């Protein structure tokens, strides 16, 4: 079983930034069949509104992981879109040209519908990058001013049909979130988020098709055996499992 994990934080709240910790994580991943990880960076270490310098430090850590394990980690560039178009363009260009990053990671600096996302999506288009947007149902959280609901991330994907968008956290998006993602071929959902709630992955496959779903763990917040186990525990065909665990990500990231 070969797995690509589309959602990881190898460095989390400063933990994991040493060569030994990175080696341990790669060994851990390989023991669970994970052949590559998308490293999204230590995205909340400086709070939800990192400065340009803090974004650079987070992305430099991801680049360091990539240098230590170039065949294992795929880098995504962490941004704070509210810093404005110049800052976004400069950091994306730096991460792509100097570090070979393949995507952009957006956390909770702003809502996916905000005007500042224009520059982010333009940069994604220019450099052919995947955009992974942290997403969680705001039904019970009430932070929509800066926290994207599935409806907001779906809006972003609908507005930019030529950019591939990953709506992070299937479980956090919930059943309503799966329905928001329907009919958008450029929108993918990762399987991460919260505990392994039964049946929701089955529902997502039924409503969206296995081609639109990517395995993601959100480690170290979650346990790899659990996040893989929930895919193995769902009522899927072997072909659907392969798509979710590996093939969709391999195609999307052009591996």
């Amino acid at each position, binding site marked *: 079983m070969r797995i690509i994990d589309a959602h990881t934080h190898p460095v989390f709240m400063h933990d994991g930034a040493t060569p030994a910790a990175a080696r341990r994580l790669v060994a851990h991943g390989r023991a669970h069949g994970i052949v590559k990880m998308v490293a999204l960076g230590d995205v909340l270490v400086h709070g939800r509104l990192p400065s340009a310098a803090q974004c650079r430090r987070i992305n430099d850590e991801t680049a360091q992981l990539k240098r230590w394990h170039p065949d294992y980690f795929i880098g995504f560039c962490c941004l704070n879109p509210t810093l404005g178009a110049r800052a976004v363009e400069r950091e994306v260009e730096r991460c792509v040209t100097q570090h070979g990053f393949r995507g952009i990671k957006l956390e909770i600096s702003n809502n996916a519908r905000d005007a500042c996302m224009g520059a982010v999506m333009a940069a994604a288009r220019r450099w052919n990058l995947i955009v992974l947007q942290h997403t969680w149902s705001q039904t019970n959280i009430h932070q929509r001013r800066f926290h994207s609901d599935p409806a907001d991330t779906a809006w972003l994907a609908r507005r930019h049909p030529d950019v591939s968008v990953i709506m992070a956290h299937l479980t956090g998006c919930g059943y309503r979130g799966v329905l928001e993602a329907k009919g958008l071929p450029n929108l993918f959902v990762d399987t991460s988020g919260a505990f392994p709630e039964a049946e929701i992955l089955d529902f997502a496959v039924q409503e969206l098709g296995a081609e639109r779903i990517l395995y993601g763990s959100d480690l170290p917040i979650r346990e790899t055996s659990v996040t893989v186990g929930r895919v193995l*525990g769902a009522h899927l065909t072997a072909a659907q499992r392969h798509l979710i665990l590996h093939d969709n990500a391999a195609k999307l990231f052009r591996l």
Partner: protein
Amino acid sequence: MLIDANVALGPWPFAPLPERTAPQLVAYLKSHGVNRALVSHLGAIFLPEPMPANRALFAAVRRTPTLLPVPVINPALATWREHLAACIAAAPIRAVKIIPAYHNYSLRLPALAPFVAAVNAAGLRLIVATRLEDERHRYHALAVKGLPVAQLAAFLARFPATHFVCSGLYKPEIETLAATHENFSADIAFAEWLNTLALLTQKIPARRLLLGTNTPLFDTRAQVDKLRLARLPAKTLALIGSANAARLFGL
């Protein structure tokens, strides 16, 4: 050989979960390596009094001896003594469960003193269920949140001679309680982090942890794999997987 300390029968109103008969549940759990399970009825959470659901539970598992019924008692109801007695008369039970967050009382409830005494006198283990779901994902019109850990700490301090089983605690909650209280064991249904059990067992002895999957709300395979694939000595895995439950529930 695994014993699952956190399984339910019956309908959950807020998600399209499979509703299994007792024999179907036995076969399903067995397909994931679980040979015995402590089972409650989800109806006991939502009905005005839990006995119809407890009776449905006893009837359902009568012919499936590997499913051990755990009735739910609401000690905030005037008739909890009768309910407890009726459950003891109805089936050979080893434990009863309370679900304060859903039954709208706090663990400071005065009736809990005679209730805990009665449960102890009957030779039963008391399971305190702190949550059944991630509260961020609860039905929009529900206000139920997990039991505050400070309440549980005060409760454990109030009954130092009784050893409780707590289900549904998050990993940091288990660690916080374990630092100050020895009179509880916890299931691992809601404990999760990278290398969960290796980290948890640094904070609480393995003899106080129990496999609990929260089936059918959570994916059973995923929950069992948290234990099965943990990098721990086989002896530790055996404690968490079955030996502790066997000891705590007299199985």
